[in-house]
């Protein structure tokens, strides 16, 4: 199987991977997650068996790095035991559309699903693949996110 040169993947997906991370972990932490994502991807790349959906693959790596990051941060920040999916406090700087402050306050699964849907423009099948859920659960996460945003944003 012929994998494309890694640089081609980086050129094609770097921008969306970065935007996905800004949406899920915030601009301040996105840079670290971005470097970790691509280094982990580079490490695993030669062993990759399936080159048919590299976009979903790299976003899966990014998603895992974002989860690790949020976990590490909540361990550091709070004495409360095990809060793996604590929402990151909304700290978006000026210039980022206000709607993202609401996205950042969503529960982690909804936040990730809606970011994959709107930032990376993934189909539900690929959101499911990235998050390791069923397609039905992916739909539900997006749906729940939109429902919650509708009530908060319209307030």
């Amino acid at each position: 199987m012929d994998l494309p040169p890694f640089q081609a993947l980086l050129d094609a997906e770097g921008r969306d991977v970065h935007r996905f991370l800004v949406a899920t972990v915030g601009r301040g932490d996105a840079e670290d997650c971005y470097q970790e994502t691509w280094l982990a991807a580079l490490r695993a790349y030669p062993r990759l068996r399936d080159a048919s959906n590299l976009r979903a693959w790299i976003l899966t790596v990014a998603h895992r790095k974002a989860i690790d990051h949020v976990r590490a941060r909540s361990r550091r920040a709070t004495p409360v035991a095990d809060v793996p999916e604590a929402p990151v406090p909304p700290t978006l700087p000026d210039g980022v559309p206000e709607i993202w402050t609401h996205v950042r306050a969503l529960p982690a699964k909804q936040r990730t699903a809606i970011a994959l849907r709107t930032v990376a423009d993934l189909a539900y099948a690929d959101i499911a693949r990235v998050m390791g859920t069923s397609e039905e659960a992916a739909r539900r996460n997006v749906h729940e996110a939109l429902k919650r945003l509708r009530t908060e944003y319209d307030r």
Partner: protein
Amino acid sequence: MTDAIERALREAAHSLPADPPPDLDTEAAAAASLIDVAYARHDTPVGTLVLAATARGLVRVSYADDEGAVAATLAQLARGVSPRVLAAPRRLDEARRELDEYFAGARRRFELRVDWRLTHGFGRRILRSTARIPYGSVSTYAQVAAEAGSPRGFRAAGNALGSNPLPIIVPCHRVLRAGGALGGYTGGTGRKLALLTIEGFEA
């Protein structure tokens, strides 16, 4: 279920970080031995080159006449060496310096290490014997074939030189037709003549 809120999100997504993504920390990647093929573009008097190196040495030089040619070279490296191909210009500093010196007329011999892995069999022998042709002099297809142990293999020699993965460094431009006709060149005969002229050879 596209509604106002989803549209707003998509619009917001497009303006999310206006800035381009950060550069990959290739120094960290190189330190962890995660770059199998590092490459750089390098401008020279005969056009832009793509230079690529492995841990063993310089593995590929190609004329980058357009983005398609660059992509083809990178795809060849991904197939022939490893898919871990990354732009990491600092890893090519030595090659770039030696090439600059060569084009300035200040270097007659390349000293950088070469990785021969994109060459094989008879072709490799042809290229190795070509690498011994001194600066400023020329040889013929028949002569390099004879040097490689196959006096009648001048046609095969022409093919091997035509697919030289390391032009300029392995000076296939110094191989002419018997009788002094210029013969072909990977980068076009204009470049062949330009390289010979730099070396002070008069056709």
